[in-house]
């Protein structure tokens, strides 16, 4: 029996970025199932850790998977369940988020969360050489957010950048709008906004436009959403740059895992996709008319 079953487990599309993950995962699955008729994919998208554990348990016990590609919603909670899959002799690819013990996964494909924070901070420092006031719109209180935030704060420390305040905007446009409106009320002088996520940016930008203060500040987001990238390409002063953190990394992981079985290539180790600063100069490479994200 030479058919191979690959399980793909991702968190539910609870915000734009995970929406992109879902999209790119399904796209990769569709493409690869066509190319490799003997590879079968089982896809699950779960709203929380217990559900995600349940999904991978079901994949092992009822669908008989040979490999698992997983983007763990909460890596700490998922570690031991993923380890069980590995112990059952399956090939395991972990995407984006580091498990809490080493050496579980065969393959690790990841973005660089601290890098995302640090790159944004570096740009802001460079764009405001004389210092300035910034506000931060954070995501959800989960570890990724914490990593990005810590890296950002570490990088601006000691510079003459003043962080006026930070609030959670839940990686959500509506909350980005709401929090930004209030920051604009509260702080008469803001030079830059770091949102670490393009969904939040879109909300924040509307709030800034509404207040008519788009000339006073700029917004640095993250993740490389097409809408923002187009603005970057167009030289919009409000969004001069973005930091890449593409949800398409899931597709890379699925492809690599599939080729492990189909191509006879042994894939293993760590693939870190850098969080690069996207400027008007290099934005061409990131634009993709097909992408929904």
């Amino acid at each position, binding site marked *: 029996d030479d058919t191979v079953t690959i399980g793909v487990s991702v968190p*539910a*599309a*609870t*915000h*734009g970025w995970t*929406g*992109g993950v*879902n*999209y790119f995962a*399904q796209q990769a699955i569709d493409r690869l199932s066509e190319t490799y008729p003997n590879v079968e994919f089982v896809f699950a*998208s779960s709203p929380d850790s217990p559900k995600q554990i349940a999904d991978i348990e079901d994949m092992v016990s009822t669908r008989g998977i040979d490999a698992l590609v997983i983007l763990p919603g909460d890596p700490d909670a998922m570690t031991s369940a993923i380890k069980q899959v590995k112990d059952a002799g399956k090939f395991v690819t972990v995407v984006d988020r580091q498990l809490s013990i080493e050496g579980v996964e065969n393959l690790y494909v990841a973005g660089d969360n601290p890098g995302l924070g640090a790159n944004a901070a570096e740009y802001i420092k460079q764009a405001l050489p004389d210092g300035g006031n910034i506000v931060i719109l*954070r995501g959800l*209180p989960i570890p990724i957010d914490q990593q990005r935030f810590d890296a950002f704060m570490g990088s601006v420390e000691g510079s003459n950048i003043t962080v006026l*305040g*930070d*609030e*959670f905007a839940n990686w*959500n*446009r*509506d909350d980005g*709008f*709401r*929090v930004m*409106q*209030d*920051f604009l*009320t*509260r702080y008469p002088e803001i030079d830059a906004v770091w949102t670490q996520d393009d*969904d939040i940016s*879109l*909300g924040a930008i*509307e709030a800034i436009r*509404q*207040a008519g203060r788009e000339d006073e500040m700029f917004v640095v987001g993250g993740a490389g959403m097409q*809408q923002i990238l187009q603005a970057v390409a167009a030289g919009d002063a409000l969004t001069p740059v973005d930091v890449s953190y593409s949800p398409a990394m899931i597709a890379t992981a699925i492809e690599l895992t599939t080729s492990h079985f189909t191509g006879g290539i042994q894939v293993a180790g760590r693939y870190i996709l850098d969080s690069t600063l996207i400027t008007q100069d290099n934005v061409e490479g990131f634009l993709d008319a097909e992408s*929904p*994200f």
Partner: protein
Amino acid sequence: MSVSAPDIAPKTKPGLKLDLKTVGPLVALALLVLLGISLNENFLSYNNLTNVLARSSFIGIIAIGATFVITAGGLDLSVGSMAAVIAGVMIMVMNWLIPTFGVSWSVVLAGMAAGILLGGVAGVGNGLMITRGRIEAFIVTLGTMGIFRSLVTFLANGGTLSLNFQVADVYRPVYYDGLLGIPYPILVFALVAIGGELIMRRTAFGRHCAAIGSNEQVARYSSINVDNVRLITYILQGVLVAVAVLLYVPRLGSASSTTGVLWELEAIAAVIIGGTTLKGGYGRVWGTVVGVIILGLIGNILNLQSFISPYLNGAFQGVIIILAVLLQRPRRAS
């Protein structure tokens, strides 16, 4: 009070009791405003107040519908997901009409009509399953909550549905402009509130809602068509969700699977903070308006200060909600 004994036993003064129950939410609101003023001098600024009111208007309009549903002894958990689906379909309809009609107000109006229609249909669906199907409202609307949420995720293909930029520019003023300096969302909210209060207080329909929520059998024996009245509350709720969405879409021009998450909880909370009885039988629309504003101000105030760690925002919210209701709690039932 019954006939009963005069001149003796100074019983718990009914005046004071009634007052507290009535002004409870207002007192809570006043305290919050004072807190806001003390935290930030811009709190009372025109900009801040219109910001808070305008963005509260979605929940507000939805919560006014919920006031009717709850007064009539029902519940609708699906409003948040319904909003998302309506927003998604509106955007799709508008995008889809552009090739035919070009970028124009007629496209926007067609989208609006589609939204209202869909809201009405969704309300009919909920209402029929609850009244004709005799299924517990909690279950029906929990079910449709899942169904609507899935639907929008499916329509958006897991991502975000975005309104065509040019149409969005046409539509934008509906959220951002206004009349005599009052943004349209606030005006619509006010109109819906006034209309709702009138309907609740001054029409047979409002009276019938209260009667049904208070005692369904009595209502039935009084030849009130219980099923129809209840059905209408759900349709009203659906249409008001659509009205809220008409104001929501021009703000950011997008809808995704995260649109409207937890709005149902917020709407119900506003209704109850406003003094409407969760088990039905008594509802007041103006109370709901106060409840909505209280909830809006809590978020605003949290963003205007730096003492409370953002991690504890939820705790602050929880405490204020409990306190707001504590102010109007009934004395020991006798």
